[in-house]
């Protein structure tokens, strides 16, 4: 089992290095913002990867609600946690980008605000998973995942309109992107997806191991004859 994993890691590292090279060297410097715009090549692919993972979490939760298999529940928690890691990166690199470009760390820019709200939703999802007791965690979390995902369009819509009411400086995105720039974004996205898959694989093994421990614990308390 070990070697394929090592190969996968090697491939991911190569892809990431290639993406980094594209972002920092190959892509032309943006006229208005200069080189700081290259944060874009990490900020946007991380967001897209995060969205992919949250979508996977949604479908895994739906699958769990119908089939109640532990596999679907493990995938739901795995994709949510790894998704939240990528999403945290988006949330932190955003202000790092805003500071040099607009001189302010945080602006209620439509995208930044929506990122923050989504981040809050999935953090509360993971907290509920940790706090709910034993057998019911999966069902409660799956229901919450459906609510969270259904909320995403409302988050983006309401905050987008909220911003058009009071225009604020808008982060990047403006202006025509040079094709080489698009390449950098796409290569990095590919690299991040591969990296996310490997992370998910490891997190999944951890989940299975933790379930073994939980069950042994449950069995342990049973065998000591404590009445059910």
């Amino acid at each position, binding site marked *: 089992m070990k070697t394929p994993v090592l190969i996968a890691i090697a491939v991911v590292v190569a892809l990431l290095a290639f993406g*980094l090279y594209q972002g920092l060297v190959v892509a032309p410097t943006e006229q208005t*913002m*200069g*080189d*700081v715009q*290259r*944060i874009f090549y*990490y*900020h946007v692919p*991380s967001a897209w990867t995060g969205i992919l993972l949250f979508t996977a979490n949604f479908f895994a939760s739906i699958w769990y609600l119908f089939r109640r298999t532990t596999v679907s529940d493990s995938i739901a928690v795995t994709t949510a946690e*790894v998704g939240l*890691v990528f999403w*945290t*990166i988006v949330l*932190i*690199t955003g202000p*790092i*980008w805003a*500071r*040099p*470009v607009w*001189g302010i760390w945080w602006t209620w820019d439509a995208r930044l605000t929506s990122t923050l709200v989504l981040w809050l939703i999935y953090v509360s999802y993971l907290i509920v998973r940790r706090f709910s007791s034993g057998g019911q965690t999966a069902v409660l979390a799956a229901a919450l995942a459906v609510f969270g995902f259904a909320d995403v369009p409302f988050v983006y819509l309401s905050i987008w309109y909220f911003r058009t009411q009071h225009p604020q400086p808008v982060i990047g995105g403006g202006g025509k992107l040079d094709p080489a720039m698009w390449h950098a974004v796409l290569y990095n996205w590919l690299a991040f997806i591969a*990296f996310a898959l490997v*992370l998910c694989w*490891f*997190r999944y*093994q*951890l989940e299975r*191991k*933790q379930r*073994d*421990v939980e069950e*042994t*614990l449950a069995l*342990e308390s049973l065998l000591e004859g404590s009445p059910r």
Partner: protein
Amino acid sequence: MNPIPFLYAAYIVTWVIHGVFILTLVTRYRKADRELRDFQKK
């Protein structure tokens, strides 16, 4: 104010966060592994 340090800061922060996450994976895995082995021994 030279913007370049912000560029490197963003890239570094990205890998710091990923690194911390991987670290938690490893520690949680080791902890669960140890607990499991204790049970098997008992």
